[in-house]
């Protein structure tokens, strides 16, 4: 696939990196010379210095032959113009546009085929807000991913050393097998798709697929805390902090937001109704104690600065908070912070990548979610008539080693499959797969012509 990315900021950079790793032909355009240099040094992509809103620039990037344009600058206006130009220069191109202003997103008909022809909007901030909200609902989980509009949930749970499941083999879970399935295990840097003979070890991060309705029972059985959070501290009142606070406003939750900048505080106070806005430094222990942080159910450290977020989370844990969510932008930090006891991390990068991956994959892929560490993915795909997977028992389908069907969604039913389950056409499948078997899986999911 040939892909043009406009904007080499954090989001553009990460997308370019991921796409180039999957052997796509990527062209990156940015106005900043330093960024272009950095990309040329680090990534296997073709980086161009120039403006993404210049038709000449887009032409010389080879837009006429490109399959996809990703407009990922910080400016909505630049992104919209870039996509308009792309539409003009190559009407059949797939356009993925980063938009932050909710007004544009809410305006119906603005983004449709006739006017701008945008195929997919990416809004990493709001994606991150959704992720955080999911995590607030299931405070015991380290990761929560929605599939099929939230009817199926993928929950990542860290197994504590004192858990009674440590050392148990997966096939001993068979009595619950109807209800849920362990799809992937992340142990240290390794990801693997489990077999019945594998055992659970301490500090494993296991990914469980389950129907949303069954979730509470399953979490109870796994001894995961699933009490809903009541008292929430948000530290950092930027775009993410505000959007989150706004979506939790006018609920019965008790939300406080702490922000250092008094001007931002004023604007937050004007726009929020019930949320209490506090002007102060989130790393100030006295302030946190004064506001009774020890009684908080969850602390969200989501300022724009990774180091501050890590410190706040550690401080909050020291002060007795059970659960913290830490926003980390630099991916290289993530293994480090796990080592010092921070378990739940959110980042813009995963959100941005998740939004575009479905357009890169072949077959009828509905959505793709990279799992922690990004060496494995959960894929939501539609089973096509004529492909090799339909109308035969699962144990007869030659799924590549390192992939497993986690759930089958058929109409209103969600089926957790076993070896005898049969996939029908139009079923939606949720498949776990290691990154290196994804090409094989793609071949399996596409139409078989003979």
């Amino acid at each position, binding site marked *: 696939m040939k892909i043009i990315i406009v904007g080499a900021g954090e989001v553009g950079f990460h997308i370019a990196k991921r796409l180039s790793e999957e052997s796509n032909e990527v062209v990156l355009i940015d106005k900043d010379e330093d960024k272009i240099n950095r990309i040329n040094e680090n990534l296997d992509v073709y980086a161009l210095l120039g403006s993404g809103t210049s038709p000449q620039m887009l032409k010389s990037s080879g837009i006429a032959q490109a399959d996809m344009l990703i407009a990922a600058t910080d400016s909505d206006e630049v992104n919209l113009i870039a996509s308009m130009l792309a539409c003009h220069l190559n009407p059949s191109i797939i356009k993925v546009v980063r938009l932050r202003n909710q007004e544009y997103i809410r305006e119906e008909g603005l983004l449709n085929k006739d006017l701008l022809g945008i195929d997919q909007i990416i809004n990493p901030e709001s994606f991150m807000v959704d992720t955080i909200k999911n995590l607030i609902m299931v405070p015991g989980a380290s990761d929560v991913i929605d599939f099929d509009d939230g009817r199926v949930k993928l929950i990542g749970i860290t197994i504590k050393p004192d858990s009674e499941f440590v050392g148990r083999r997966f096939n001993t879970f068979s009595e619950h097998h109807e209800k849920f399935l362990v799809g992937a295990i992340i142990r240290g840097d390794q990801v693997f798709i489990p077999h019945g003979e594998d055992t659970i070890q301490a500090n494993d991060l296991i990914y469980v697929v389950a129907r949303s309705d069954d979730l509470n029972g399953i979490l109870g059985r796994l001894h995961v805390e699933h009490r809903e959070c009541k008292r929430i501290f948000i530290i950092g009142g930027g775009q993410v902090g505000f959007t989150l606070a706004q979506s939790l406003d006018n609920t019965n939750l008790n939300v406080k937001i702490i922000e250092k900048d*008094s001007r931002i*505080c*004023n604007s*937050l*106070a*004007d726009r929020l*109704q019930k949320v*209490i*806005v*506090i*002007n*102060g430094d989130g790393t100030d222990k006295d*302030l946190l104690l*004064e*506001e009774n942080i020890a009684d908080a159910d969850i602390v969200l450290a989501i300022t724009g600065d990774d180091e501050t977020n890590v410190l706040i989370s550690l401080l909050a844990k020291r002060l007795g908070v059970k659960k913290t969510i830490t926003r980390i932008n630099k991916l290289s930090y993530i293994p480090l912070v796990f080592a010092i006891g921070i378990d739940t991390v959110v980042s813009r990068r995963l959100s941005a990548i998740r939004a575009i991956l479905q357009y890169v994959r072949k077959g009828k892929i509905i959505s793709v979610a990279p799992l922690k560490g990004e060496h494995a993915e959960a894929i939501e795909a539609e089973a096509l008539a004529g492909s090799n997977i339909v109308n035969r028992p699962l144990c007869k389908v030659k799924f590549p080693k390192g992939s497993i069907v986690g759930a089958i969604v058929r109409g209103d039913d969600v089926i957790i499959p076993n070896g005898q389950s049969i996939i029908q056409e139009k079923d939606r499948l949720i498949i776990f797969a290691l990154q290196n078997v994804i090409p094989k899986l793609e071949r399996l999911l596409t139409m078989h012509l003979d």
Partner: protein
Amino acid sequence: MHPRSILRFISIIILYLAIALSVPTIVSVIYHENSVFPLLYSMLITLGVGLILYFLTQTHKELILSHRDGILVVTFGWITAGLIGALPFMLSGYIPDFTNAYFESLSGFTTTGASILNNIESLPKGILLWRSIIQWLGGMGIIVLSIAILPYLGVGGMQLYKAEIPSPVIEKLKPRISDTAKTLWKVYLLITVIEVILLFVGGMPLFDSICHAFCTMPTGGFSPKNLSIAHYGNPYLECVIMVFMLLAGINFSLHYRFLKGESKIYVIDPECRIFLLIVISFILIIVIDLYKEVYGSLLESIRFGSFQVCSIITTTGFVTADFDKWPSLSRKILLICMILGAMAGSTGGGIKTIRLILIAKHSYKEIFQLIHPRAILRVKLGGKSIPPEVLSSIWGFVFLYLGILVLASLIMAHLGMDMISAFSSVCACIFNIGPGLGTVGPTQNYLSIPLIGKWVLIFCMLLGRLEIYTVLVLLVPEFWKK
């Protein structure tokens, strides 16, 4: 300051009053009353004065009204209207004394409804109708004043409602305000007509229906009957009047929006919601207090209790029961009703619900701040932050209101009234209600008050009606400096 523009506007007001005077004159002719000529002379005098002023101020230049001119037109407009309103009373000889006639007339124009008349029913129909028309016109003036002019002048924190007028232009008051005014007057007229019909259907004579409707909508409270609404003893009529008093106590721009199809606006609007809540809770308290104590049946307690609460809190002042004889708790609740008043943007007086809400919220904010010293807090109404200037202006307004109330009460007491009567007479006038307690209670009138007392009360009516600042600012020397 532009004296020519100011006089021009006042001359227009006078000419409109001349036209209004023709209505009672015609009625007088129809009923063959002796008040025909006094009314006709009043009309001619008014017409003459109006025309002279109008032609003297004739100019080719565009009329300019500055901020200060606006204040002057409003205040002197009301004072002049009071003078013209008094003419028929004096010329007809029914109220020969100037002070009494002016008191009656200004009480009408400020929609207070305080009367110095002993035997109202002895007056000819023409004069009675004029009394009601005065109130109705006063109400019209107040709607424009409270929705269009005062918010724009920023009086007493009312800049809150500025947003309702599309982009006010500083130098020219006229164009947009006249549009707003016309729309609101249509609403006012419509509701009045509906009330006349409902009262007439309920068996009230047509003349009485018109008079009562004309005095309900401006929350005035003049009645052509000595016993006010109690004269009819008809629960249906009381019910109709009670509902329309409440309507008159609600911001007229809400009625407009309701008629435009926003059916839930009364519940959505935060001020209206709280106003209705206050009315209901006061009715409940009074009904509980009255039941068994004064009235034997629960239904009667509700009937008289709710009518009096609605009448006093909307500052109308109609009566169906002598609430001065009620138990002490009920009387105190009514006194609180007097002070609270109706909604801003209505024809009612008092401190206004909106100011009460904001003061309560501001106080809560201060207490909350003690618990969270670092919190950034805002006083909000309907999701919007209220700027601190508006809040301080409201505090100033309320403090001034209560200060004047205390001062005027002391003067009245010094003139020989007992404390309750003195306090309630000032309340009844400054909040534009009408009847008070004690010697100015619902079955009494203001005739016996000494001369100085009457002028103090006249001043209070004007102060209360024009939201204090508009009048007091004229007493500041800085206002008159070039």
